[in-house]
């Protein structure tokens, strides 16, 4: 019965008051004519309250005429009347439409991208590919082919064994599995020489293939052939044979950096003044609120703040860029201080220049006086490294 009532509510029904002496006759005629009536309550000797469907109410007129009753609507109930009321409210309709369109829009957009990778260094590479494909927060899900994107990432990022792209709701999941790099293949029919990559003294040699031209303790120049790929036979009748030279040549090398000692040091100091520039962020878009910092020199520090109700980070938030004013001040130094400052800078300079695979063996600091009286600090670092460089032999 509940379902029938629900159906009636959806279709709409009316509560009517029927007045007249032939009330029983009215009810009988209605039931004979398949007009459903329910919840009939006797009000007094002449009238009764009852409910009837909209369709039934329309068919009721002949029955009322025959029985000599008067039918009056007391209340209209049901969904059609509810909706009817909203028909007049323009704002409500607009709001409803707006809500629906916003909902559709919001669900057709990617809100977040999650890259699942066993190696953290692969994440920025995948992000780069996504950027070049113009996929980010706020891009539409339509026209995004996960299979195509997966193959694109697999092609563009090196060292991937498998890529899976999946759209779950409004989130884009990129799952990446890394592969083990294959070893470098060496073809024996190619001709290669080993050449010194930089100047040095050879301390240790391991030659696997080729004709060694130098020996331990030799001083070599950059570009000098250390191991030749051409094997010459002692018997000239056999001729020569070309091989791919292979080996490790560990040599002692030197790196130096020299700097004039300056008695004046420029100090950068933060003043107490600062300026905030606020950006409104929607997806990856930045909207600037407020002006440029009014300083000549400044350092900036950015803080991102995102709306995150219930622990879900929304792509809407603020970025605050705080600029601190910087003042430069010249300080006069004593000789000792000046030298230590110069040594520090020279060491930092050297560290940046040293190759990755070298081992520092010794470090020397020299003080040299130049022609015009300026004092130079010279830092020399002694290293041990593999200087073997493979160079193909031209025919």
């Amino acid at each position: 019965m509940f379902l029938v009532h629900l159906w009636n509510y959806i279709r709409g029904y009316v509560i009517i008051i029927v007045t007249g002496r032939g009330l029983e006759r009215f009810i009988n005629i209605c039931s004979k004519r398949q007009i459903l009536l329910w919840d009939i309550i006797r009000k007094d000797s002449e009238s009764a309250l009852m409910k009837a469907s909209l369709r039934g109410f329309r068919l009721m007129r002949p029955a009322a005429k025959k029985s000599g009753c008067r039918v009056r609507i007391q209340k209209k109930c049901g969904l059609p009347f509810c909706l009817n009321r909203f028909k007049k409210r323009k704002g409500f309709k607009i709001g409803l439409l707006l809500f629906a369109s916003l909902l559709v829009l919001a669900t057709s957009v990617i809100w977040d991208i999650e890259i699942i990778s066993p190696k953290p260094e692969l994440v920025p590479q995948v992000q780069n590919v996504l950027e070049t494909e113009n996929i980010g927060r706020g891009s539409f899900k339509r026209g995004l082919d996960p299979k195509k994107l997966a193959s694109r990432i697999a092609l563009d990022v090196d060292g991937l064994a498998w890529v899976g792209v999946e759209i779950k709701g409004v989130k884009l999941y990129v799952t990446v599995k890394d592969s083990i790099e294959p070893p470098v293949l060496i073809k024996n029919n190619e001709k290669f020489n080993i050449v010194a990559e930089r100047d040095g003294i050879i301390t240790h040699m391991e030659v696997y293939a080729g004709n060694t031209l130098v020996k331990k303790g030799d001083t070599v120049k950059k570009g000098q052939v250390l191991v030749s790929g051409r094997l010459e036979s002692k018997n000239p009748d056999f001729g020569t044979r070309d091989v791919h030279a292979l080996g490790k040549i560990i040599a002692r090398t030197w790196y130096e950096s020299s700097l004039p000692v300056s008695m004046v040091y420029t100090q950068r100091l933060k003043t107490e003044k600062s300026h905030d520039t606020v950006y409104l962020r929607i997806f990856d878009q930045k909207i600037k609120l407020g002006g440029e910092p009014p300083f000549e020199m400044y350092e900036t520090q950015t803080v991102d703040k995102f709306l995150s109700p219930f622990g879900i980070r929304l792509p809407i938030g603020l970025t605050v860029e705080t600029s601190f004013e910087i003042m430069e001040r010249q300080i006069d130094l004593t000789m000792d201080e000046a030298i230590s400052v110069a040594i520090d800078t020279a060491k930092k300079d050297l560290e940046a220049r040293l190759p990755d695979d070298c081992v520092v063996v010794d470090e020397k600091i020299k003080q040299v006086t130049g022609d015009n009286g300026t004092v130079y600090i010279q830092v020399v670092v002694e290293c041990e490294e593999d200087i073997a460089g493979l160079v193909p032999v031209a025919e």
Partner: protein
Amino acid sequence: MKRGIHRIKGSGKTPKEPGESLGEKLARLFEIPADVYGNRPKVTAIGRGEVMIENFKGIMDFQDGMIRINTNNGVIRVTGERLVIREITSEEIIIGGKISNIDYDA
């Protein structure tokens, strides 16, 4: 004595209802339930608050304390307090309220 003979005669048979048609006689012969065939009213009372009458002809009287319903077996009168017709179609009528009597008064 007479009573006993009468009992033997009528055993195994339900008493005849007045105005039984041929079809109903046949239905009884083949042991078809009476509510499946025929237009006899079926009165179902659930608790005290609901009476359902199927196969009725029409309502004769409808008051707060009494409803009279015309059927093929005569008039059925339902009395009680605050009676309402929960639903009425051409086949069945459901009466609600606090029911005290169901009479066959024809």
